[in-house]
């Protein structure tokens, strides 16, 4: 285990982690409002990634294709919100979770029907290869993905902190009823947050597809679990916590691959999360939240 190998792996870990971060922030935004585990989030992302693949295959210019795919993700997220969540928003907590799961399964099956069960390669829009930094070869694609992901997270942070939508979202997070009384259109904000979550998620999903050169149906569940793990690690419902949690999860998985082999990397992530829960139940950067009933 020499230094160049470790550096390369570290950059890879950071790149994967930054992708998790992008997927996790949209997820954390939804969670912080409704305290609902959005089981369909990953499947929305999967559909978006497939849409990007199709659009690029139809010879659309790449930036337009990616933007359109993100928009598809936002639309699907809106539809899921309208069909699966809104009718059960105020029911017992377990009810929306189950309907979310059902929506995810329906999306996965639809994708299966449209795009087939095979793992499909994703076009390499960012050249692979190594560049030398201080005499150490660093994978170029990983670096670019890291940069892009951080830019997306910063864009999301700008949305949340500096726009009217962001401030309204924060109000709804704090107290949904008080926000309603203050004239914030809650029934507009919640679908919008879902749409933004879907948009960002698909952006992360496309980076994921590019990095691993694969789009597949099970990607949805994978993305859901990773996003949730990242959000939980960083502190649930906390935007920046989710981003940092994603980065840390990526690095932790990389360490697991280096030390015990790639088959057990999900297991290592599980052990880390359980340990964090035992020692710091509110997550690494979270505040304590009282469980809503």
């Amino acid at each position, binding site marked *: 285990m020499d230094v160049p190998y470790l550096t390369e792996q570290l950059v890879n870990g950071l790149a994967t982690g930054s992708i998790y971060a992008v997927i996790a922030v949209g997820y954390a935004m939804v969670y912080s409002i409704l*305290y609902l*585990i959005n089981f369909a989030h990953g499947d929305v992302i999967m559909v978006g990634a497939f849409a990007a693949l199709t659009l690029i295959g139809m010879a659309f210019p790449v930036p337009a294709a990616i933007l359109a795919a993100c928009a598809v993700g936002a639309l699907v997220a809106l539809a899921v919100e309208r*069909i*699966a969540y809104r*009718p*059960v928003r105020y*029911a*017992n*907590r*377990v*009810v*929306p*979770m*189950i*309907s979310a*799961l*059902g*929506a*995810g*399964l*329906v999306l*996965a*099956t*639809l994708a*299966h*029907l449209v795009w087939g*069960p095979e793992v499909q390669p994703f076009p390499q829009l960012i050249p692979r290869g190594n560049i030398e930094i201080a005499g150490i070869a660093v994978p170029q694609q990983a670096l670019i993905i890291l940069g892009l992901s951080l830019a997306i997270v910063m864009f999301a942070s700008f949305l949340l902190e500096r726009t009217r939508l962001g401030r309204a979202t924060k109000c709804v997070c704090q107290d949904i009823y008080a926000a309603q009384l203050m004239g914030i259109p809650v029934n507009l904000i919640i679908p919008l947050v879902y749409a933004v979550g879907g948009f960002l998620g698909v952006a992360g999903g496309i980076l994921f597809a590019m990095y691993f050169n694969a789009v597949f149906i099970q990607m949805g*569940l994978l993305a859901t*679990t990773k996003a*949730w*793990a990242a959000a*939980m690690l960083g502190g*649930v419902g906390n935007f920046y916590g989710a981003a940092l949690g994603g980065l840390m999860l990526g690095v932790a998985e990389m360490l697991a691959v280096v030390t015990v082999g790639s*088959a*057990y990397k*999900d*297991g290592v*992530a*599980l052990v880390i*999360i*359980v340990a964090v*829960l*035992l020692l710091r*139940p*509110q997550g690494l950067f979270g505040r304590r939240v009282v*469980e809503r*009933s």
Partner: protein
Amino acid sequence: MLVARAGWPALAGIVLLIAIPLMVTDRYVLYVLNISMIFAILAIGQNIITGWCGMLTLGHAAFFGVGAYTSGLLAVDHGWPFLACFAAAGLAAGLAGALLSLPCLRVRSDFLSLITIAFAQMFFVVVNNWTELTRGPMGLPRIPRMEVFGWTARTEAEIFWVIGGVLAIVMFAVHRLVSGPIGRAWEAVRDDENAARALGINVTHAKVQAFTIGCVLAGFAGSLYAHTLRIVAPEMFFLEESLIIMQMAILGGLASLPGSLLGAALMVGIPEALRSGNEWLITLRPGIGGALLLAMMIWRPQGLLGRLRDAPPFLLALSAALRGLFVQRSRR
């Protein structure tokens, strides 16, 4: 004693249990009934966790697998008798459930649903890769038949009696549990956690208890499954199975024992009845299941046999029949 406590419906159930294998001679029908009874035990376990205590678990198949592998390995590698394997399977699954749920449930029950997914994936990876112990993806063959005090269940009818006996005991025990203070504590936690806490219920304790009991049932079911099919393989306990178990619990009705029976019978029976190598059916099955979950949550969160005041008449009749068979008429 069983009769004295649960009354005539229980007696009728026991008579039916003894009579069905004598009347039904088709081995395939009996086999399907056996499998649905095993899944009914699983669905009851899921129902304790999700229906009575309001927690979502998506790893029930993994605990099922823990039970099946514990039982199978002890029988094949160490020659333990069936009853010892059966007990060990319940114990192992319960222990795994308690250890997994304790850290999550101290915080929020939401964590549990994702941790159980992760656990299910982990279980699959470990069982698939730890070839020296589990024989890996090829599965663990030549598990001995079920044998109780020197009597071995050889025909499907005899297997029916063993599984049916376990199911009857499970239903009786769970019925006693959920109609007593423990079950009421679970329901209180499900309906309003803060109110439950204010009433002096130890919320964490109640949740871990419900989860552990659900997992113990999954372990028992796993042991029965292993000794019925006589082979276990990793992909028998994948995430899809967990989803199917949950669909059983929800379709029949959350917090309803007869509902779990009905859900298991439907979810095992319908695919078997339609089994004709239909490619599209296999493709569509998760989607249909998902749409089912969605529709049930929006229009009938109480399930087919849940609270029945506004149910269609044929369901009322069916439910009354099932209820009469299996559940003591309650104080209502």
